[in-house]
């Protein structure tokens, strides 16, 4: 819709959120509209701000571990992973190889769970009720597997400085292998129900096109960036943990529309399964936790560590001052940058398309607000 055709008195404001089914949490988007056309969507953040960074700066670094899982509760283990790796890098703590393998396996399982949930939630945004329950059905198996070893189903606190808190057993390995087999069979159902569904394709194709240039300008990362055709994945480009030992691909899209972002996530699930399989095959023996001093001293100076979370690049930045309490802790979360392009992307489109675009970003609001 061209700007010139809109009369001033036809403009009105619509508050979408903070209690709206499609904002996936307490996000408010103030929409300036003309009829059903969105002229200017403005996200308003801060409804679930809990001062996680400040909490991190006010207690010994071990005490912040549970908080890491409360930021992105859908995919919490990479958040654990980033934080423990940061402190290990800062304090020079060695990690046994078996522990790194377990970290990779559980993180990737968590990534698959997150993508499954997103798949259902996105289709729910488009008005299909059934896929979310199929996604939940599969995700339930992952949660059961992870619950057995981590003790929690959603907000994990499983990794420790220098390893993980509990070794995995044969039951875990068996259950994970069974799950991989099961999910591969279920792809067929998802393909029939969603990927080849004509209404879904019409709702997602050529909607919300993010050009590679725009993606870089806004600092978009993760599947949203790869949907635009840029093969940037921290696991490949700045390898951490034991990721270099595994053979996996980085799926990319072509056009950068919602359908590409969907396809990238679906293909990423398969790559995660491949990583898990390889890790289970080559799982080394040995301890899962190294000796760590009771009081960890953070040496003066800054330190940064980035991991690939389910939504994109998650990076922790820390300044130490010689004590056990971080002087400054800054967390760069992917959803914040991903959301920032909504305003440019959402000008002059229909309201249902805005819902579709926001759904395709895979936003987790508590992560943005922290």
């Amino acid at each position, binding site marked *: 819709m061209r700007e010139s055709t809109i009369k001033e008195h036809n403009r009105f404001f619509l508050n979408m959120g903070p209690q709206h089914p499609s904002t996936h949490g307490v996000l408010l988007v103030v929409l300036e509209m003309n009829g059903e056309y969105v002229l200017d969507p403005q996200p308003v953040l801060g409804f679930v701000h809990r001062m996680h960074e400040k909490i991190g700066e006010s207690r010994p670094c071990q005490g912040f571990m549970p908080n890491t899982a409360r930021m992105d509760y859908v995919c919490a283990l990479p958040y654990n992973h980033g934080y423990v790796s940061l402190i290990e890098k800062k304090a020079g703590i060695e990690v046994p190889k078996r522990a790194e393998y377990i970290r990779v396996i559980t993180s990737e399982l968590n990534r698959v769970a997150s993508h499954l949930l997103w798949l259902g939630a996105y289709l729910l945004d488009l008005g299909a009720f059934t896929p979310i329950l199929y996604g939940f059905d599969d995700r339930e198996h992952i949660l059961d597997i992870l619950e057995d070893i981590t003790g929690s189903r959603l907000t994990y606190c499983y990794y420790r400085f220098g390893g993980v808190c509990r070794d995995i057993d044969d039951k875990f390995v068996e259950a994970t292998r069974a799950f991989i087999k099961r999910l591969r069979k279920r792809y067929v159902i998802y393909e029939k129900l969603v990927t080849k569904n004509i*209404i*879904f394709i019409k*709702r997602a194709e050529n909607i919300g096109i993010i050009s590679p240039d725009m993606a870089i300008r806004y600092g978009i990362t993760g599947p949203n960036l790869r949907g635009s055709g840029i093969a940037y994945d921290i696991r490949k480009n700045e390898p951490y943990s034991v990721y270099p030992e595994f053979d996996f691909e980085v799926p990319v899209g072509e056009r950068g529309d919602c359908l590409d972002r969907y396809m990238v996530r679906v293909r990423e699930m398969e790559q995660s399964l491949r990583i898990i399989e390889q890790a289970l095959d080559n799982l080394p023996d040995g301890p899962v936790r190294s000796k760590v001093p009771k009081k960890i001293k953070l040496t003066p100076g800054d330190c940064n560590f980035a991991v690939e979370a389910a939504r994109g690049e998650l990076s922790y930045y820390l300044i130490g001052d010689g004590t056990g309490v971080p002087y400054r802790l800054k967390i760069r979360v992917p959803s914040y940058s991903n959301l920032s392009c909504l305003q440019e992307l959402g000008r002059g489109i*229909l309201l249902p*398309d805005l*819902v579709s675009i926001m759904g395709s970003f895979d936003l987790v609001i508590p992560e943005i607000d922290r």
Partner: protein
Amino acid sequence: METISTLPPELIRMVIAVIIIISFIFLNAIMMGYLERKIAGHVQRRLGPMEVGFHGILQLVVDGVKLVAKELLIPINVDRTFFRLAPILSFTPVILPLLVIPFSEKLQARDLNLGLLFIVSMTSVNVMAILVGGWGSNNKYSMFGAMRAVAQSIAYEIPILLSMLAIILMTNTLSLKEIVGAQQKIWFVLLQPLAFIIYVISGIAETNRAPFDLPEAESELTAGFHTEYSGIGFSLFFLGEYTNMFTVASVATVLFLGGWHGPSLPYGEYLGIVWFFLKVYFLLFFMIMIRWTYPRVRFDQLLNFAWKYLVPFSLVNILITAVVVKL
């Protein structure tokens, strides 16, 4: 007794018919609500309602009691007259089409010679209720829903009428009883497959069912036109929706699926109703399955589909029918 015998028998018949139909409407809503939730459950690999009664069979009765017993909540800034009028307007006209539908050869309240026209005009009152409710709610989301409903209803009433016209051309009558009678040998679905497909698609759109449920698209408009309604107001909209579905399926059965015709039963002139209901509920089952399978279309796609595909195809269909029948 004397007063009753002096009344015209027609009036007594109508009163009895209306009572039966109103009780059937409630029964139908309960059955449809239960079916919808049970089928949705099984489609989604869960059980659906299981707690109240055998396999949750009394769930909808309990829900109904809850809805009726709820406080009548009227938000502060609404247009009170319109807000109260809308649910009544949605519920009242849905009774009338059932008066002329021939459930079997002898089970029909009144055989109007303009029966089809009567049904079409009565079912289109429903959109008025949505408009009044959406406007009266004084809520932007409700207003969106109402506006969508009007545009959608206008767009899809045309292909519905055009597909009916093809049948009327073949039978030369608007009386539903005679249309069913004309299908003694062959059902019209075999002679008019295109009209049947167009009718079913438009019928789903006309009753605001997914994937065309844009007036209440909950992921965009929270709940669309009935966002502000709760309790009895909501349940009247709900009753109206299910009865409209039943009407649309009944008309499809009458026009295309041979009405009460089927393998002969004893007392066929009455028990034809069994075949009629089987066909109607098969169509309703189909509509429920569609709802739980497909995502929602976008509004411009919906209107484009009506004007660019359904209307031209039904016009071509009428042309072919006219040429074949009248030559």
